[in-house]
């Protein structure tokens, strides 16, 4: 079985390189096969909830890609709620890049875009997608939506795709300051975009439907907060990639009933799992899902469990369903990645207070200036809270920028450090108890 899969992957990879325009259908077929596999033969080592999550995300992408008119390209922050009301799926280019790694094509696409002049120092998610589109592998959708949040690459990548491939797009300019003027400015843009898309794509927009989507979204967010709390208590085996699937869910399927039901299921299911006795990690920024050392330490590990990540819960508030456009504007403006780094550090400190992790790991993804540039500031804040923090450098997608030896040494030293620290704490506690008994 494994051999057949590998042969197919290799075959599609070769064709994507030699005859790009002919390879797409075969790629989509592969995604369909993988969808079936995750349904019928889910990974044994992970919990039921994460199995279902993986299968849902596979179906979401594989099914959307089957019908070109069913989706728009977006970035991960594009308001999927509005697209949902227009009867469209949002396929984020970051996620699509990850899916393309299934065919081991990331190196080829990254080199392709760099060879056309795109900066090697750009985010690898963007380079992969630009390469895939530019080389002619990916077909065009009718429209695309991006936000200026959370990085410079968004506007520039989508503008480049418009110029080179002719995919029209809307840029949502997310203002930096979180105040009334910004909300008004952005809410107007959201309304304008909705009307423009409905008109251009021949779709009907109903505000009541959007209100309902936001209501479901609010419920989902509450359930997710519960899930994080439960994950603190129970050993709920998952993989690094499970975190990315969860991020996909909270960005591309937010407001959908099936996603809400999945999180509800996870909240029930997790209670049937044993108590978690290992170290709890709060993860900051992206996860290099392919990275061997990190996988060996975190995948289905009873010793180290990732509790939550800022990329999954980048907005924690409640949306006002009566004013849906304003609510979506607020959601984007108050996002953890918008505004000053202090805003981000405050939210992460709040999350740390709630979830009480044993350690924080910040992964600096190659090319991501907005995240890496503040990592030292976050480290200082975590030091104040006496939470050990590790900064790892690497790449979320391009293996060539993540050196295993370096990651391994740093990670192992850090884990040894937190283990020693906790042993010390236990000894102190025991000594105190002994003293108490002696008295």
């Amino acid at each position, binding site marked *: 079985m494994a051999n057949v899969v590998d042969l197919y992957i290799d075959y599609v990879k070769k064709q994507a390189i030699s005859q790009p325009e002919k390879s797409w259908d075969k790629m989509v077929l592969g995604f369909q096969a993988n969808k079936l596999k995750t349904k019928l033969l889910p990974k044994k080592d992970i919990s039921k909830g994460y199995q279902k999550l993986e299968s849902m995300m596979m179906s979401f992408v594989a099914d959307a890609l089957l019908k070109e008119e069913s989706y728009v390209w977006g970035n991960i922050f594009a308001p999927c709620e509005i697209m949902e009301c227009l009867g469209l799926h949002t396929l984020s280019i970051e996620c699509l890049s990850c899916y393309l790694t299934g065919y081991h094509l990331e190196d080829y696409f990254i080199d392709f875009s760099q*060879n056309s002049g*795109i900066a090697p120092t750009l985010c690898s998610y963007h380079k992969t997608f630009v390469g895939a589109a530019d080389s002619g592998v990916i077909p065009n959708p009718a429209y695309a939506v991006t936000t200026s949040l959370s990085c*410079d690459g968004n506007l520039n990548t989508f503008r480049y795709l418009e110029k080179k491939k002719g995919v029209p797009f809307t840029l949502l300019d997310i203002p*930096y300051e979180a105040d009334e003027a910004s909300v008004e400015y952005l809410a107007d843009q959201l309304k304008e975009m909705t009307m423009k898309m409905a008109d251009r794509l021949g779709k009907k927009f109903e505000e009541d439907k959007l209100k309902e989507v936001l209501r479901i979204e609010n419920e989902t967010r509450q359930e997710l907060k519960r899930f994080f709390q439960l994950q603190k208590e129970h050993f709920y085996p998952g993989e690094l990639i499970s975190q990315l699937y969860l991020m996909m869910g909270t960005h591309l399927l937010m407001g959908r009933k099936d996603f809400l039901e999945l999180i509800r299921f996870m909240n029930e299911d997790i209670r049937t799992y044993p108590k978690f006795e290992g170290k709890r990690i709060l993860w900051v920024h992206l996860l290099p899902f392919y990275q061997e050392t990190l996988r060996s330490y975190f995948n289905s590990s009873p010793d180290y469990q990732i509790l939550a990540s800022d990329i999954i819960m980048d907005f924690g508030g409640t949306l006002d369903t009566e004013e849906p456009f304003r609510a979506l504007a607020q959601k984007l403006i108050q996002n953890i990645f918008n505004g*000053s*780094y202090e805003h981000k550090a405050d939210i992460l400190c709040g999350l740390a207070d709630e979830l009480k992790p044993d350690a924080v790991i910040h992964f600096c993804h190659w*090319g991501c200036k907005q995240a890496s*540039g*503040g990592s030292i500031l976050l480290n200082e804040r975590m030091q104040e809270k006496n939470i050990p923090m590790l900064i790892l450098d690497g790449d979320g997608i391009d293996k060539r920028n993540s050196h295993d030896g370096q990651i391994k040494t740093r990670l192992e030293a850090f884990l040894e450090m937190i283990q020693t620290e906790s042993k010390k704490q236990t000894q102190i506690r025991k000594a105190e108890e002994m003293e108490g008994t002696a008295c």
Partner: protein
Amino acid sequence: MLGYICKYAPVEVLESMGVSMKRIEPSVTSFNQADVLMHPNVCSFAKGVLEDVLENDYEGVLLTTCCDSIRRLYDVLKQKLPDKFIYILDTPRINKDAGIALYESRIRAMIKAYEEFSGKTFSEEKLGELLKEREDQENLHQKKHAVNIGILGARADESMKSILEEKGVNVAFDLTCTGLARKLLYEKDAPLTGYTRGLLGQFPCMRMEEAANRDRLIRTYADSVDGVLYHTVQFCDNYSYEYAWLKEILQKPMLLLETDNTKQSYGQILTRIEAFLESLPKNKPHKTGQTGAKDGGPVIGKKAGKNKEENKMYVLGIDSGSTSTNAVIMDENRKLISFSVVRTGAKSGESAERILKEILKKANLSREDISYIVSTGYGRVSIPFADENVTEISCHGRGAHYFNPAVRTILDIGGQDSKGIRLNEKGEVVDFVMNDKCAAGTGRFLEMIARTLEVEIDELGAIALQSKTDIEITSMCSVFAESEVISLIANNREKADIANGICRAIANKSYSLLKRVGMEPEFMMTGGVAKNPGVVRAVEEKIGAKLYICPEPEIVGAVGAALYALEQWQNER
């Protein structure tokens, strides 16, 4: 004094309050503080500003939300300099009415904050008066008889412009954010609103939504010049998109120039600009105005050596590279008389003296027999006896054409950099791409790996040819690659396989250089690394074509220099 960096900053508002405003243009020698306080991968300009602000005495800094790196710069400055006026203006990307209204309210908030900080007051009337006084300036300054160059891309610093000026090049336009005249609008009834409209209505930079105007203007402007210099800053990725797009549509020659705001990068900028100017149809290699042989006056055929034919003239080409210094002597019939290769020591001038003695001895000639000397290579300006210097890029082009006129694409891998050069049928450079500041895929890199593998550098290629199993060396960085090699050794992998893995890694890097420059056959490889059969085989496999390699691949640059010397001597005659 307040520092600022962005053309969207409301400089005139603060000036009307009596503040002296300084545009920060960092030129630093290191990023010691920035690398500790931010992250090494943040844009070099932002890191440079951080160093500059920490070193100098500003009252404060006014930033805009122009890009990710600057947003993080604000966070760091705000934390490190709590007593100064560190302010970031939320600058919209949309320049329609909604954007103007929002920006005006942001500017008003900034004014209030500064009034509170400084005790100064703002008057809209005063701003109006100041705006009335200043006028717009025209951007295009074309000159008929000079070489006209346009500058595009990210902010261009002074060193770049002064190089162009020294070369007698006319900068017809500079559409980077530092080169544009400010667009000031004066509206009598609402000076600040009008002013804000003018600010946001400037020639849009890459962060702005409205870029259609930008594209149109660039096309119009670019058509009017001889060449375009496209500047980007290291770790600022925004402009590379435009470069990638322009590369396909622009008819004019274009040079991509990446800088990092450090003083050390001057030499590299110089080489690239010179080579680019040399490649323009309107231009010829320049005179250096150096003393030496020129002042003494070239004397032809005055003294006859034993083996020297009477009345023959000779020229010398000398290529002062980072690893080796190479020289050739050529006669007027373009015949190579002799060549010599020596290791470049700490001082390139000394190696040059050494090689001059050596080659003259080999050719049985004396200094006076040489009519003209052209130097090339990194150390080309440090050779006192040269009459002229030409960049190694043009020289490699000439040299390659001399050995094999069918060659169109050259891969040159030297000690510390690698280049892809594309030629036309006359051997003139049409385009080139350089990879430097990074040892990956260079001669130094191979030396380092050979040391790690405990083999001689000359054996490395031969060993690689014996490889039976493919190993992927994935790291792009030479430091990482070295530790990857160490892990492979630790895992008992075969030396031959590791060596071949390294050769293939170099081939991959070379392939991208060649792709960027355009892959037109025939292919030639030059530089010391062309002597490594492992690398040659790996490159040939990667590009799917044979590489032409001349008997002494290290001297191609020096031969090119000699050809220039010959041409120059004939011209002078």
